[in-house]
């Protein structure tokens, strides 16, 4: 029972592992004994001061990765096998999209949002299957409260933080694709779940204070989330503590979607 949440038997590729949420998730995986490949498009983040503990960790290795390129994704999986001897866990924290509105968005904007929100999730899953097929594996995708509910525009005002339509569209698709994959890949011993974070604004992006107050008010806990609040959910879903949990979206939103 002591080791219920241990990840000592896991070698995990973390897509987006150098981001604001990704760093906390990566640290938590390492702290629970897991081995990690941090695959991130933002190569400069690997060199930053607050990444040095991960960069210097004996169980972590980094790789620049563009989720649009199959070869990059495969390279991350191969690197995991080469460096860690095996590969049986996948965490995908990546999202990319553009600002758009219903009235001004082009077909191309929508296609881009679906690619950055869910197309690359499909790609990462498809490419992992050959590696996981023999001995099983576990996949944790990242959804959002906005895959379950829709933005309340009253809180956005002129904050410049408006949430574009492509975001929720893609995140809802992540939730359904997660359960589809779980049903389809159970035969290979692959579990697939998602974490749906609530508001976890990055202070580096300088969100206005009054907007942060509005976000906090929409939660039952009365505060926005920190990356460390969510890291545990990823570790839990990667670990054998969740061995009978599949097709599930674990909502970590301080109660945002529950009232």
């Amino acid at each position, binding site marked *: 029972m002591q080791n219920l949440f241990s990840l000592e038997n896991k070698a995990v590729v973390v897509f987006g592992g150098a981001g604001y949420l990704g760093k906390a998730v990566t640290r938590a995986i390492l702290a629970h004994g897991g081995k990690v490949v941090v695959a991130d498009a933002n190569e400069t983040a690997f060199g930053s001061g607050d990444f040095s503990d991960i960069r210097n960790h004996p169980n972590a290795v980094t790789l620049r990765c563009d989720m649009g390129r199959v070869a990059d994704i495969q390279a991350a999986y191969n690197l995991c096998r080469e460096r860690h001897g095996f590969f049986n866990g996948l965490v995908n924290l990546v999202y990319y999209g553009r600002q758009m509105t219903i009235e001004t968005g082009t077909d191309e904007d929508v296609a881009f949002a679906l690619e950055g929100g869910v197309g690359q999730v499909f790609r990462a899953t498809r490419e992992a299957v050959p590696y996981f097929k023999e001995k099983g594996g576990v996949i944790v995708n990242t959804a959002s409260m906005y895959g379950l509910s829709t933005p309340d525009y009253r809180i956005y005002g002129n904050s410049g933080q408006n949430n574009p339509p492509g975001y929720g569209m893609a995140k809802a698709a992540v939730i359904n694709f997660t359960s589809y994959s779980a049903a389809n890949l*159970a035969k290979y011993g692959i579990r697939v779940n998602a974490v749906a974070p609530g508001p976890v604004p990055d202070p580096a992006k300088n969100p206005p204070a009054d907007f942060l107050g509005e976000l906090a008010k929409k939660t039952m806990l*009365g505060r926005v989330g920190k990356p460390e609040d969510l890291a545990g*959910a990823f570790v839990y879903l990667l670990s054998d503590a969740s061995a009978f949990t599949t097709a599930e979206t674990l909502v970590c939103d301080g109660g945002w979607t529950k009232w």
Partner: protein
Amino acid sequence: MSLPASFSLSGKVVLQFGGTGHLGGALVSALASAGAALIVATRDKESVRDSVAQATQAGHAVFAEEADIRSEPSLHELRDRVLAAHGRIDGVVFNAVSRPMSGFDDDLAKWEMSMAVNATGFFAAARVFGDAMAARGSGSMVAIASMQGMVGPNFWLYDSPAAHPPPDYFFHKAGMINLTRYLAARYGPRGVRVNAVSPGGILNPAKPPSEGFLSRYGEMTMLGRMALPPEICGPVVFLLSDAASYITGANLCVEGGYTVK
């Protein structure tokens, strides 16, 4: 850099309602192993003697207390005894259940007996201990609900009409899931998180169902089988722990994909 999420229950005082049955015993062992000082509240101490003795032998701090959740004074006394002995309460697991009904055509008195424990008793206990934890400004409550609070029965699964599950369970487990959200909204601002865990069918190895049932049930899940008791315990430990610090009002399904298929 902040510390990574902790799943440990060390230093936490946890109260578990309902310590018998194949899940109750597994929970006692899991919560104690995770480091909690555990108080098992039960109608009859004798019924949890073995699981408490086992955990104590393994070096864990486990205590049994008698209480009747149909009685508010009994719950108040339990709260006072636990606070006097341990000084605080950090977590509550609500695993008590009463199953007086055996079929759809039972006397309504049996429905009422069920509600006295499963509806009124759950609310009374959640209020007494929710208030106690809110007074200290932190805590986590986990209600053991069921996927049978989320979906209706599939009678095809069962060997005969006599084996059909009774209706009260589907009513009070659904109520438990939504009362969990109410409690989460009420206690969230005072630092208390409230969540549900909804297991699917749990295999009792001592009393396994028929081969036919196991095979039909397996088909309905994605993992092809019933759950084992320890598989329900990991999610409960997680929700009690600080690793779940931003999760409240949630219903965590542990049903091998049954309700999603």
